[in-house]
């Protein structure tokens, strides 16, 4: 059991924000608890108060507004993998969600908790970068809207201010004619590498492409330069272009050794999975689980 805790159950974002402002570092935002309770128990985080944001009804919504999905911060991974709106408008994200940890974590853990904790060994952020998702944040000074890549700053670090909370994630669908794939390597139920790609083909060429890589280094990254090298290339040149991008990937991703694999291994496999993700997206066969598991 973690140390003694006291519970606040706000019903509006402004009530939660006021509690965070008053209690400062002593308060922790509590959503799924899957990461927080572990950290409290291990003494890696300290807190006396839980601000349970799950009691805020609007944070549980999943809406489609005609242009984008709007997903409340407290929606669980299991709901995301099964929700018909998500499967319709962001199917690759739904598939990435279906691979998060195990069914218990997916039942308990929330999208908002996952993004706010910003553990580099995580799936959702990588898929969301390819959708060019954004987040809505609420706090004392009102609401602000940020692209996801400006929210996920560095490992375990986000753009959230001390009295702010994540309200919702907005996901525009991929434009018509695009296909996508999410591939990962994992050990001990945490990914050591996640690759998301989306691609539009025209007459045997790559008309447009987006790609993102997570878990390899401290921060999930869009691969803007590789995307521009791939744009306009013939389909069968994609593998070669990705193979030649190793130096760029090393510099951008800053791969690190960890218990899940060496930096060199992760970098090598990044190239492999990028090629496979592009092929898979081009094949349009997105129905299978895109997983390579060990242990």
């Amino acid at each position, binding site marked *: *059991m*973690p*140390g*003694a*805790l*006291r*519970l*606040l*159950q706000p019903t509006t974002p402004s009530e939660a924000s*006021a*509690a965070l402002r*008053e*209690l400062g570092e002593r*308060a922790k935002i509590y959503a799924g*608890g*899957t990461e927080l*309770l*572990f950290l409290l*128990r291990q003494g890696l985080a300290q807190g006396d*108060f*839980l601000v349970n944001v799950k009691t805020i009804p609007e944070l549980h919504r999943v809406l489609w507004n005609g242009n984008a999905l709007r997903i409340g911060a407290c929606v669980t991974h*299991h709901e995301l993998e099964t929700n018909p709106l998500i499967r319709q408008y962001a199917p690759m994200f739904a598939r990435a969600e279906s691979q998060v*940890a*195990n*069914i*218990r*974590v997916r*039942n*308990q853990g929330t999208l908002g908790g996952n993004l706010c904790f910003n553990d580099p060994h995580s799936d959702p952020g990588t898929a969301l970068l390819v959708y060019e998702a954004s987040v809505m944040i609420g706090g004392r000074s009102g609401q602000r809207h940020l692209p996801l890549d400006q929210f996920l700053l560095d490992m375990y670090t986000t753009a959230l201010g001390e009295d702010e909370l994540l309200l919702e994630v907005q996901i525009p669908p991929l434009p018509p004619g695009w296909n996508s794939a999410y591939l990962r390597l994992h050990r*001990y*139920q945490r990914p050591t590498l996640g690759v998301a790609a989306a691609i539009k083909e025209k007459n045997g060429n790559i008309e447009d492409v987006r790609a993102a890589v997570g878990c390899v280094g401290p921060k999930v990254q869009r691969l803007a330069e590789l995307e521009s090298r791939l744009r306009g290339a013939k389909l069968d040149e994609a593998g070669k272009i990705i193979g030649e991008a190793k130096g760029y990937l090393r510099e951008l991703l800053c791969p690190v050794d960890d218990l899940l694999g060496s930096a060199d291994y992760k970098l090598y496999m990044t190239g492999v999975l990028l090629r496979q993700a592009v092929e898979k997206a081009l094949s349009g066969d997105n129905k299978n*689980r895109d997983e390579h*598991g060990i242990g």
Partner: protein
Amino acid sequence: MESAEAKAQRNFDLSLTVNGKAWSGQVPVEETLLEFIRNRLRLTGTKRSCESEVCGACTVLVDEQPVSSCSYLAFEAHGKSVLTIEGLAQGEKLDPLQEAFIRNVGAQCGYCTPGQIMAAKALLRQNPAPTREEIAEWLSGNICRCGAYPAIAASILEAAQELEEKGR
């Protein structure tokens, strides 16, 4: 306006059902469902192990969904229905899953078994006729360090078949 500090609760008035029986009382906010089940209700079939949601030994069902009771605060189960391994048998009659695990020796040391069976229970409720592959996928979060996986999968397949035959 009352300060957040003054408003914060140290204890929670919890009401829930566990294996069909109602329970009401106060629990500290930080009490986990695992502690509640084992220490307060003395139902010790549910096991504590990794305490990091990886191993699945503490799996129980809350409103039919599997959760890691080691990392689920008891107050979250307010108004909900919790099912543990002790709640599966109907009197003296074991659940078909329990019978199949016994027949197939779906265990070696047995420590992970309650969690395996509870995870399997949730699977069969959602998917009454799973393939072996679907079983392996669903139970990928329930670790058996003795390596009884083939017998565990066989037990679940057999129980599913038995339930299906009964249902006909």
